């Protein structure tokens, strides 16, 4: 807890303020009158005026922004502008757990796959396995997630019929069923992340494995597995942690796409549905929530450096 952290928090506050303003201003980017886009053409002028009044469009811009921000902070993100005019926050609260679960599962799967792959690759750097993993991961990185998702659905859901598509079981109902339904979507999310993590971790592992302390551990008679897991992994994970922050953006992106592909009731489906119907209050609310989560997660990732590297831990205190 030092001035560094304070400065960070201050910066974050500024960033969130700007993001919220940008989100709020989305409406003004609408090519035509929001009232018209809500009600459609050909209504009475009084009806349009009433909607404008309700949206507060007649006030001055700063007033409107502060109003909007005030209620947003208080937990009121407004109502959707298309039927059935439900509460935006309620919809988000229902959808968010699905997305978070998918993202976490995807990330966990990616780590589960990539750590052994990277170790295998780095342990036998330059060998056949390394080359295959290298080429494979580079290739996978060039496959957009929606394409990978379509292929995986076709093979595993449609052709082989091993996994379902388009249904969702909440964790509260049945954990097993929930995981069964979440497996394929999470796999799609994990694919690109796995390729990315494998490459980064492999690169760092190779650098670490050339360090003297690895040789010293070897000279103490420690086994190759002990050296890889206990000596090499942690010092090699710093780039990956940085990357976790970078790939979080991609992760959210692929979660959106996967929800759309598998028709799962998460934030992605919510946002895409809203975008297609021009439901801008919904989009505003969702963007705001996602941005806040995204920025805070990145802060956490930043702080996790200290846990992994004792040298930084001391500098932070």
């Amino acid at each position, binding site marked *: 807890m030092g001035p560094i952290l304070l400065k960070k928090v201050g910066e974050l506050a500024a960033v969130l303020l700007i993001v919220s303003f940008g989100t709020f201003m989305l409406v003004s980017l609408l090519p035509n009158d929001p009232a018209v886009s809500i009600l459609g053409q050909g209504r009475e002028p009084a009806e349009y005026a009433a909607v404008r009044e309700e949206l507060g469009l007649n006030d001055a811009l700063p007033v409107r922004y502060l109003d909007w921000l005030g209620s947003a902070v208080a937990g009121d993100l407004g109502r959707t502008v298309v039927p059935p005019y439900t509460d935006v926050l309620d919809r988000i609260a229902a959808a968010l757990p699905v997305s978070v679960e998918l993202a976490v599962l995807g990330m966990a799967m990616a780590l589960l796959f990539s750590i052994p792959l990277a170790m295998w690759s780095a342990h036998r750097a330059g*060998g056949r396995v390394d080359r295959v993993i290298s080429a494979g991961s580079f290739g996978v990185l060039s496959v957009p997630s929606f394409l990978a998702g379509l292929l995986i659905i076709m093979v595993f859901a449609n052709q082989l019929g091993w996994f379902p598509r388009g249904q969702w079981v909440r964790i509260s109902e049945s954990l097993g069923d929930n995981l069964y339904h979440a497996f394929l979507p999470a796999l799609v999310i994990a694919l690109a992340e796995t390729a990315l993590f494998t490459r980064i971790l492999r690169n760092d592992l190779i650098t670490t494995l050339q360090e003297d302390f690895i040789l010293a551990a070897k000279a103490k008679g*420690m086994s190759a597995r002990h050296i890889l897991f206990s*000596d090499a992994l942690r010092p090699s994970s710093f780039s990956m942690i940085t990357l976790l922050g970078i790939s979080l953006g991609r992760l959210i992106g692929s979660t959106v796409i996967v929800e759309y592909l598998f028709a799962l009731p998460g934030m992605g489906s919510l946002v895409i549905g809203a975008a297609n119907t021009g439901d801008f209050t919904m989009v505003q609310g969702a963007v705001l929530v996602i941005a806040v989560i995204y920025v805070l997660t990145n802060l956490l990732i930043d702080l996790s450096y200290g846990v*992994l590297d004792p040298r930084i831990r001391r500098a932070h205190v």
Partner: protein
Amino acid sequence: MNSTSALLPDRPAAEQESPVLIVDDLRTQIHTPRGDVQAVDGISFTLGRGKTLGIVGESGSGKSVLGRTIMGLYSTGPTMTVSGRVLIAGKDVHTLGASGLRELWGSDVGMVFQDPMTALNPVKKVGVHLTESLRRHRTMNRAQAKAHAAELLNLVGIPEPRRRLDQYPHELSGGMRQRVVIAMSLANEPALLIADEPTTALDVTVQKQILDLLDRLQDELGMAIVLISHNLGVVAGRADRVAVMYAGRVVETADAAALFGLPHHPYTEALLEAIPRLDQPPHVRLAAIDGAPPNMVAPPIGCRFAPRCRYAQSDCTLAPPSLDGAVTRGIATPGHSFACYHPVNAGGQ
């Protein structure tokens, strides 16, 4: 040091007689994209219990590769080829499998590295560095290993060992870290310690402390030491025997006193002349060795030092002189041999 007895079990008498380390015609060839490098080229020696062999040479002379090959850290694989034999405490290092090597390392032989900054894992506590090897090689539980680790730190002269166990390497000074590295290599009382430039990365004042520590530990634990250094001064007072390496080969080897007193190989002579001496009058120019070590991908055919040697004659570039050759020709003794056709400070010419 009262803990010595606990750390030094009585070894059988027979083992004390036979050499701890036998190196026989060791060769290490490193494959690089630019070609194969003969980093260690036919080196043989033996080292008895409690003795110290100093290996001296410029950087790039192959002395570190030699140390790591003796250890078995370097062995035949895609990037290098090793031939010859290394026996440590009677075990043929290069015929041991992976698990045999792990048994050997840390129990029969330990290694001290050049830079204590890099030889300790920055994310592991000092205690873990010591205990993981203890628990690996001996059946010790966590508490026993920790107690023993504290004893080890005490042995290498680190005050407050209990507190140090819970510190990270970056919280210690350079000299302290090197003491930890030494403690780490001594954890299971190896018969042989390979110290690769153990003082190069340290301040001059700390260098002496570390060398004194190694001396003392050798007296107390009776291990043999291979002391590798580019610095003749480091080796001078500490080694019983010295081998001078040049371009992968030993060019001269003798008891320390004989070698420093009357060097026969022109390279040894040049090395000695390049050391500043207090007994010289001021403003005497130090003799640097002209030129650079040879390109090891395509080394000179004859004596590898010939291109830089002020005594070189035409026969020097024809065939490489050998240590044995000088002995058979009667110009050297097995106790003090050198690979040179035209030795200095000698009657034979």
